C-alpha cells in the first residue's frame, strides 16, 4: 500500500488514482478531528470540504521529505479557526428570538458529553494539543509543526492538560 508521502507526490503530479486514494485515506482522519470538537461537530462535513479546497490550493507548498500529516492538520486547524471566527461574527449580528429552537439530535451523542465537558475545561491551546495527540494520533514533533509551535511548548501544554484532566477524572470517579 503506498504511503501518504508518495500519494501526495502523485497528487502534485496530477495522478488521478493517487489523488483519489489520498482523499480516501486522509478524509476519515480529518472528519474525526472535526467531529470530536463540540464547536465543529455540526459543520464537520462543510469543514472537511473547505479543508480539501485549501489543501488543493496549497498543494504546491508541500515538499517531498516533509511529513504530510502535520501539513494537512495545519490547514485543517486554520479551516476550523476561520470557521469559528466567521460564526462568531455572524452570532454578533444575530437577532434574539423568543424561544430557543430545538437542537437537532445529531449534535449530541451518547459518548460526547463526558469528553466534551472535560475538554471544555481546558484552554483552547491545550485542548487542541490533546486532540491532535490523542485523537488524530500525531507525535509531539508533528503537533509542533501543525500548530506552528515548538516541541517543548507542545510537551508543556500536554502536561498541563493531562494534569487538569487527571484531576477531573479522579473527581468523577469519586462522585461515581
Amino acid at each position, binding site marked *: 500500500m503506498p504511503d501518504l508521502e508518495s500519494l501526495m507526490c502523485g497528487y*502534485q*503530479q*496530477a495522478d*488521478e488514482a493517487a*489523488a*483519489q486514494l489520498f*482523499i*480516501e485515506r486522509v*478524509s*476519515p482522519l480529518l*472528519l*474525526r478531528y472535526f*467531529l*470530536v470538537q463540540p464547536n465543529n461537530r455540526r459543520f*464537520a*462535513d462543510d469543514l*472537511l*470540504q473547505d479543508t*480539501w*479546497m*485549501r489543501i*488543493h*490550493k*496549497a*498543494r*504546491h*507548498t*508541500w*515538499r*517531498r521529505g*516533509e*511529513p504530510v500529516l*502535520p*501539513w494537512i*492538520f*495545519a*490547514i485543517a486547524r*486554520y479551516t476550523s479557526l*476561520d470557521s469559528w*471566527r466567521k460564526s462568531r461574527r455572524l452570532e454578533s449580528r444575530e437577532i434574539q428570538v423568543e424561544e430557543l429552537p430545538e437542537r437537532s439530535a445529531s449534535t449530541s451523542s451518547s*459518548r460526547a458529553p*463526558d*469528553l466534551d465537558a472535560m475538554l471544555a475545561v481546558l484552554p483552547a491551546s491545550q485542548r487542541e494539543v*490533546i486532540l491532535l495527540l*490523542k*485523537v488524530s494520533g500525531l507525535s*509531539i514533533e508533528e503537533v*509542533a*509543526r*501543525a500548530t*506552528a*509551535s*515548538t516541541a517543548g*511548548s507542545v510537551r508543556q501544554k*500536554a502536561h498541563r492538560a*493531562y494534569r487538569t*484532566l*487527571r484531576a477531573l*477524572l479522579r473527581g468523577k470517579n469519586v462522585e461515581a
Partner: protein
Amino acid sequence: MKPDPIDDFLAKAAAPPPDAATVRAGVERAQSAVLGDLRPVRPLGSPVRSALLFLAAFAAIAVLAGLILGPHGFHVLSALQRVLIFSALCVAAAVAALACTRAMRPASGASLSFPSLLLAAVGFPVLFAFLFAGYNTLHFVHEGIPCLVAGLCVSIPTCLLLLPLLRRGFVLDRRQAALACGTLAGLAGLAMLEIHCPNLRAIHVMVWHVAVVLVSAVLAWAIARLAW
C-alpha cells in the same frame, strides 16, 4: 510520554470513528471537487531560496531608496558604525525573511513573526545607544517626523511589493504573515534612513528610525486583523 489512566479515557471517549456513510459522502464530495480541477503543480522551492528572495527584495529597495534620496548618512558614519549597523540590519532582515518564508508554508515550524519584530525593536535601540551619543531633545519632534514619514514612504510600498512573493505560497495565518512582512518592510525603511539621514544624535536614531519598523509592522498587522 508515560502511559496514563487519562490515555485510556481519551482512547475510549474518542474511539468511535465517523460512520462509514458520513465518510463515504464526504470523500465523494471532496473527490468530485478536487479531481475536477486536477493539474500538475511545481512544488515551491526550498525555504532558503524563498528567504533569499525576500532578503534580495529588502536589500534592493533599501539601497535604491537610500541612493535616490542621497547617501548623506552613510558618509558621516565611521567604519565601525557602518559595519555594526549594516551587519545588524542584515541579521534582523534575515530573521524577518525567514519569518515571511514560514508564514507562507503550512507546518513549516514555529512562527518567527513576533520574535523578528522584538529583535528589531529591542536590538536596534541598544545598538544605537552603544554607537551614538547625544540625548538632547531640542528639535526632537521637528527633526524626527520627516525621518518617520520618509521611512514609512519606503516601508509601505515595500510591504506591497513583498505581497506577491508571499502569495507564491499559501498563507494560513494572515496576521502573522502581515506582521512578518511589515517588519521586513520596516527594516527596509530603517536601512534607507541609515544610508540617507545624517542626524547621528542617539535619541533621534533610537526613537524615530526604529519607530519606522514598529509602525510598519503594527500597521500591517492591524490591517490584516481588520480585513480577516
